[in-house]
């Protein structure tokens, strides 16, 4: 039977991860696809998954009264989207709207949290990788805040 394990194994996020753990994680993974303009997730709703984009693009949006939905970032092929499933209250802080048809692997947050609780070594590996991702995004956000191209 074909599983998603070989696809996950090729993604840089899982690079070097023990095969045993990869098998565990694969149990939480499923293939998903979304059409343009679909909301993959919506601000305020339960965050049950995160996504590894295999194809397409998603705009991360926030609703600003008077301005409508404002795109704060776009994510594309190879990117990982979503960390609201990691921490209570497990609700999306932003919305994700499909810009170009998306094929992705969805990883079930509840399933992952359970496996991480059961095996703290897996949890450490997983959270280490997610921390790296969060730091990268934080740094990018800080640079965006500098508004480097404006006239100072």
């Amino acid at each position, binding site marked *: 039977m074909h599983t998603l394990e070989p696809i996950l194994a090729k993604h840089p996020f899982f690079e070097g991860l023990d095969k045993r753990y990869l098998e565990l994680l694969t149990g939480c993974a499923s293939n998903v696809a979304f059409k343009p303009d679909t909301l993959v997730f919506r601000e305020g709703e339960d965050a049950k998954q995160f996504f590894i984009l295999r194809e397409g693009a998603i*705009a991360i949006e926030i609703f600003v009264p008077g301005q409508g939905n404002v*795109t*704060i970032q*776009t994510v594309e092929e*190879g990117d990982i989207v979503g960390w609201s499933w990691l921490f209570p209250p497990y609700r999306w802080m932003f919305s994700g709207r499909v810009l170009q048809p998306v094929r992705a692997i969805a990883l079930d947050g509840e399933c992952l949290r359970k496996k991480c609780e059961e095996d703290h070594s897996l949890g450490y590996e997983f959270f280490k990788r997610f921390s790296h991702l969060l730091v990268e995004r934080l740094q990018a956000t800080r*640079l*965006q805040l500098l508004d*480097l*191209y404006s*006239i100072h």
Partner: protein
Amino acid sequence: MLTPAVQPPAARLYDPMLPSLHRVEYARWDTDDTFSLELARVDGATIPPFEPGQFNMLYVYGVGEIPISISGDPARRDLLVHTTRAVGTVTRAMSTLKVGDSLGVRGPFGTTWPVDAARGRDVVIVAGGIGLAPLRPAMYRILAHREHYNRVVLLYGARTPGDVLYRKELEQWRAHFDLDVFVTVDRATGSWRGSVGLVTSLIGRAPFDPLNTAAMVCGPEVMMRFTAAELEKRGVKGDLIYVSMERNMKCAIGLCGHCQYGPFFICKDGPVFPYRRVQHLLSKWEI
């Protein structure tokens, strides 16, 4: 390290301190705050040859003189093109010039992008904001000799969709089958459906072979620092990354010292530097 280019010999034939009179042939606003001037010599002579990355000193009579990178095609000898932002006294005055008005030009000065030395490699051009202007001559030169390069990638980051410089040209370049053009904005506005995020975020997914790539980077210093770090993270060798520095240039020939940057004069030793030569200076507060 690719050999940094030097001033072309022909440029030394001119008295470097004597402005030559030019006439505005064409003036246009590229964005809300950025404009381009196309200049021709009043005496009808051809413009001095220049290399991608070099700059001229532009003199608005009665107002002042400032350095501005050349942003036109180096193959054209009839018109000199400069793009700049209306931000200071001189550039604001310059932005009011109309067709037929005159201004003084000294140059070209400074070192060049390693366009010829990059032959046989992939070329990655990374521009932020108005940093695309000094890189445009490099794009023209590369496109004119496309067969000498492997993959050519242009990564461009602007503040908002309205700040995207040379939009039509970018669209034309994007239509080339042998050119990869990626544009991103820091803030999406209006109906923009393109990429949103820092230009550095494009580096990880851009199609090039890092082990055989020469990179040319121009933009705000912080952007160049993070771009170079990202390129190195991807595997591009630090000595094949080039950056263009900016300081307050006055004489443009390394005499007055206004543009001193550590051991360098930006006007004479730069503006284009191999990243390795200035890397240690980029994070020094005192310089």
